[in-house]
Structures are given as structure tokens and as C-alpha cells.
């Protein structure tokens, strides 16, 4: 188990350095001089520009900039934005919000996706199943931002059921609608995955054995069918946490949430490498950890899997 963990963490190292280097290089290539942009229309004196460039390490070659940045990360210094705020502060401000949002979306899609998927899989080919399939297809096909606008317009503005935007007051009720929007597409995928998996397992030998030895239907379905069907679903959910946090840019924009997406979008337009790279780095770490967690969860779901 520990050896397996160690090997996985070693494998994650190149991913960590590769992804940060790649993003850093991409931001380095962004057009526009951020220092000159600081001066706005009035411009900035050559001496001051020089001084600022030195302060932000912009006068050094690319690879030196990157290494200095990585060195900073390991001592907890994520750099400072051009307006003087430490990037670390931005991180601790934005990530909890997006993390809450992503966890809520993940919980919603897991509960409803697995629930409906189970029922659909048990009644494959019946009217309830077909209806759910059509709904899931529509949810996948309609882009997130359209679902977002429609929900915001009808649930928020017309009917006034939920708050329209989030803004500074982050709470369960304000985040509920964005979480539904963010998790909608994945909900449809989880539903379809669970459905296929359940209907496949229903004809498996171990289910026939369980029924034959006299177990009740609910017990067969929950303990034998569902537990085995969850393995692909858990894989998907694990990979999805990272995707939800990174893909929240649109949802956060629509509902005015001050999270990762909004901050990143601003930083990209201001050509600020440390912010973009720091945020992406944390996203990559979330992705790696979530996937590792999923692999460990396999062992709990399927006793045949053991990590040596």
C-alpha cells in the first residue's frame, strides 16, 4: 500500500513540473507588455519600468523566471500580482469558494446521477428509462451557459425561487443554482454510466447466485449490483472534480462568483504569469490527488483489488 502510494506520487512529479512549465511557457508567450500596461494612457517612465521588471523577474530569461517561481512555491511564496497583492492571498480567497461550488456540484451529480441511473438500469427499455435517457441527452447537448442563463432567468428572475447571483455572500442557497448548472452535464454522464453498468451487472453470475441463495431483491440490488456498478462511476467522479474546478470559468462568470474561474480569466488578460500558473498548479494538484483517491477507493469497492 505505502509502496504503491510512493510510486504514484513519484509518477505525479513529472506531471506537476511538466504542467507548470507548459502553462508558464504559454503565459510567457502571451502578447503585450504588462509593465507598460500598468501605466495606462499616461505611460510609464523607462527607469520605473526597468525597476518593476527587475522586481517581477521579467528581465530574466524564461527558464530562470520559471525556476525562480518554482523555488518560491516550495517556500510558500506564490509571487505578487502587479497591484501588489500576494498571489497566495488570491489563492486562499478564490479556492475555498470554487471548492465549495465543485463539491456541491459533485454531490448533486453523484446523488441524482447514481439514483436515477440505478432505476433506469433496473428498468432498461421501459418508459421511465427512455425518458431519462432523452433528458440526459438533452442536458449533455445544451451548453452549460445556456442552461445557466435559462435557470437564472426563470428560477432566479421570473419565479424568484433562488438568489440570482452570488457575489460576496457565499452560502448554500446562493451556490445551489450555480452548482446545479455546473454539475448538469456530469450528472447526465453519471446517469448513463450507472445505467449501463447496472444493466450489465444484472445478468452477472454473482447476482444470480445472490438471488438463488435467497437474498431479498433490495439487498441484491444495493449490495451486489450497485456496489459493483459503482467502480466506473467513481472513476468518472474523481476525474470530474478537477474538471469541475477548472471548468467553472463560465458558470462563475454567469453567477458572478469570485472564485478560481473569474480570477484566472482576469489574470490571463493582465498577462500575469504567477497568478495563472499558481492557480493552474493547484488545479493540477487537485486533479492528481482526486485520481489517487479514486484508485485507493477501488480497493474498498472491489475486494479483488489490492495494492502491494
Amino acid at each position: 500500500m505505502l509502496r504503491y502510494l510512493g510510486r504514484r506520487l513519484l509518477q505525479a512529479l513529472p506531471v506537476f513540473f511538466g504542467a507548470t512549465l507548459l502553462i508558464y511557457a504559454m503565459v510567457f508567450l502571451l502578447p503585450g507588455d504588462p509593465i507598460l500596461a500598468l501605466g495606462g494612457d499616461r505611460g510609464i517612465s523607462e527607469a520605473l519600468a526597468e525597476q518593476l521588471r527587475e522586481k517581477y523577474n521579467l528581465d530574466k530569461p524564461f527558464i530562470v523566471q520559471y525556476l525562480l517561481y518554482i523555488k518560491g512555491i516550495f517556500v510558500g511564496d506564490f509571487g505578487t500580482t502587479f497591484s501588489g497583492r500576494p498571489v497566495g492571498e488570491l489563492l486562499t480567497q478564490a479556492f475555498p469558494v470554487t471548492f465549495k461550488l465543485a463539491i456541491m456540484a459533485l454531490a448533486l451529480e453523484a446523488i441524482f446521477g447514481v439514483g436515477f441511473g440505478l432505476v433506469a438500469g433496473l428498468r432498461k427499455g421501459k418508459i421511465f428509462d427512455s425518458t431519462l435517457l432523452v433528458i440526459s441527452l438533452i442536458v449533455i447537448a445544451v451548453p452549460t451557459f445556456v442552461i445557466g442563463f435559462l435557470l437564472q432567468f426563470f428560477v432566479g428572475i421570473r419565479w424568484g425561487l433562488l438568489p440570482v447571483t452570488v457575489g460576496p455572500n457565499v452560502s448554500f442557497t446562493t451556490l445551489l443554482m450555480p452548482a446545479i448548472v455546473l454539475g448538469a452535464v456530469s450528472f447526465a454522464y453519471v446517469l448513463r454510466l450507472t445505467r449501463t453498468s447496472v444493466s450489465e451487472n444484472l445478468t452477472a453470475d454473482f447476482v444470480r447466485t445472490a438471488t438463488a441463495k435467497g437474498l431479498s431483491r433490495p439487498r441484491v440490488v444495493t449490495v451486489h449490483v450497485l456496489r459493483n456498478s459503482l467502480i466506473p462511476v467513481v472513476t468518472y467522479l474523481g476525474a470530474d472534480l478537477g474538471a469541475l474546478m477548472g471548468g467553472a470559468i463560465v458558470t462563475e462568470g454567469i453567477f458572478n462568483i469570485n472564485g478560481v474561474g473569474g480570477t484566472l480569466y482576469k489574470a490571463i488578460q493582465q498577462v500575469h504569469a504567477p497568478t495563472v500558473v499558481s492557480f493552474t498548479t493547484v488545479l493540477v494538484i487537485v486533479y492528481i490527488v482526486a485520481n489517487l483517491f479514486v484508485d485507493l477507493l477501488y480497493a474498498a469497492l472491489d475486494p479483488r483489488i489490492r495494492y502491494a
Partner: protein
Amino acid sequence: MRDKLDRIDRPDQSHFFASLDDAVLDEVDVVDETAAPASLWQDAWRNLRRRPIFWVSAVLILSAVVLAALPGLFTKTDPMFCELTRSLDLPEPGHPFGFDKQGCDIFARTVYGARASVVVGVLTTIFVALLGSIVGAIAGFYGRWFDSLLSRITDIFFAIPLVLAAIVVMQIFKQYRGILTVVMVLAVFGWPQIARITRGAVMSVKNSDFVTAAKSLGASRFATLVRHVMPNALAPIIVTATVSLGSFIVVEATLSFLGIGLPPDKLVSWGADIAKASRSLRDQPSILFYPSGALALTVLGFIMMGDAVRDALDPKARKR
């Protein structure tokens, strides 16, 4: 013991064999021995034809492709021609969907928007399938350090969220925004999924007997890979590519929606139109319906096609 058994008189078994005179040799001779047995693909096609979902998706895809290729057949109005005096005018003869806030004809814009979506989707998928299957095949087939290196590179690209990377790169190529830029950006960051699937498929067949047979008959490693291993990985690649075609269309729309995809002054994109419509949502909510409906139907077509093809190619799912 054996001897004893053999000597036991058995009931006459001769009636189990038809006598030679009864065998209809002529009819047996009719079997065409040159015809190949039904391949996976013929089988899949036979299965596919019977599925209504296949025909529905085929019609959706075909309509999108016809709209993309020949938009002039459906409307004579220039989608770029807008009159502010007609802002938010209701539908009228010749302009069935009405006008948006800038006074552009919504029907014309919906028709012309198909081109960007279809071209981006199809081209990106072709590039992604090529790049992904080549990387995956090399990693899976040659193994060893090739595999370690390529798998780590795949991991790196997989770990970076697609939309995020696309935003940064689109920002780099600010001056060169166009269909090809979007295609390149999506292809560079979209290939890892197919690479992983190809690698898995290649690894699962590379130790099969028919691969060993090909090798022992003197086929080179490259020929073995291309002629014997890759055809077996083709089915999952095609299925994944069809489904992801729909999602690439969505990502293009997302980028255009954020204002960093296709240039709005040169190309019509449903994503950009949705963004525009969302700003006049309170005055005229129905405007949002047309570009998003068209986008959703196109994406739906490709996703359903992927589903149908997957079911047809998967013998396990075919039984039911």
C-alpha cells in the same frame, strides 16, 4: 474395461447419417467460397441500420453539414448585415426568427453559424484522432521507455483543463483568431483521451496469437502494428472520436461565448450569438432559443451517433 465397453452392442446409429444419395450436393455447391465472412464492420452496419437512433442522428448531422456547406440555399440575407432600426423586431415574412438587439436577421445568423461549428468539430476530431492514436499506438505497442515517456506527456496534457488552456493559447494568438487557430488549440490539448484509449486497446491485443503469428511469419514490427494491431483498436477510437466531436463543438461555442474564440466581425458563431442574446434576455428571451437550439441539435446528433456506433460495435451490448 475399454474393450468391454466397445463390445457392447449399441443401437444402430446409421440413421444419424444421411445417406450419400440424399445429400443435395448441388445446393451445397452454391455457397460462394470467395465471399469473406461478415466482418465486424459489416455486422455493425447491419445492426446500425435497424436502430432509429442512428437514423435520427444521421438526419441531424446531415442537416448541419448541408447548412454548413451551402448556407446560401436557405437564406438570401447577409448575416453580417444589421440595421439598428430593426433592433429586436418580431418575426415577419422573409425573416422567420425576427431580429436581435443589433438588428441582424436571426434566421440568417443561425443558418450561417453552422459552418464554424461543423468545420471546427470535424477538423479538430480528425487531428485529435490522428495525434492521439499515433501517440497511443507507439506507447502501447513499443512499450518500455517509449511508453513511460509518452504516458507522462499524455498525463501532463490531460491534467490541464481544456477550456483553461484554450483561453490562454487563444490569447497568445490574439491577432490570428480564426477557425484554424481554434482547431489547432483544441487539437493540441484534446488528444490525451484518445491516446489513452488507443494505448489500452493496443496493449490488450499486442500479445494475441494472431500478432505472434504475423511476427513469426516475418512481418516487420511496423507492419504488424499497422496491419494487425491497429484495426483492432479502431472501434474504440471511432466511438470516442464521434462523441468528442460534439464536445469540441461545445468548447468552440464556449470560447466564442467568452469572446476569445472566432472573430465576431468575420465569422458567425452560435457561441458568440448566445452571448449576445444573453445580454438582451430580459427584453426578448426567445432570441436565446435559436442559436442555442441549433447548437444543441448539432451536438445531439454527434453524441447520439457515437452512442449508436458504440452499441453496434460492442457485441456485449448487442445481445439485448
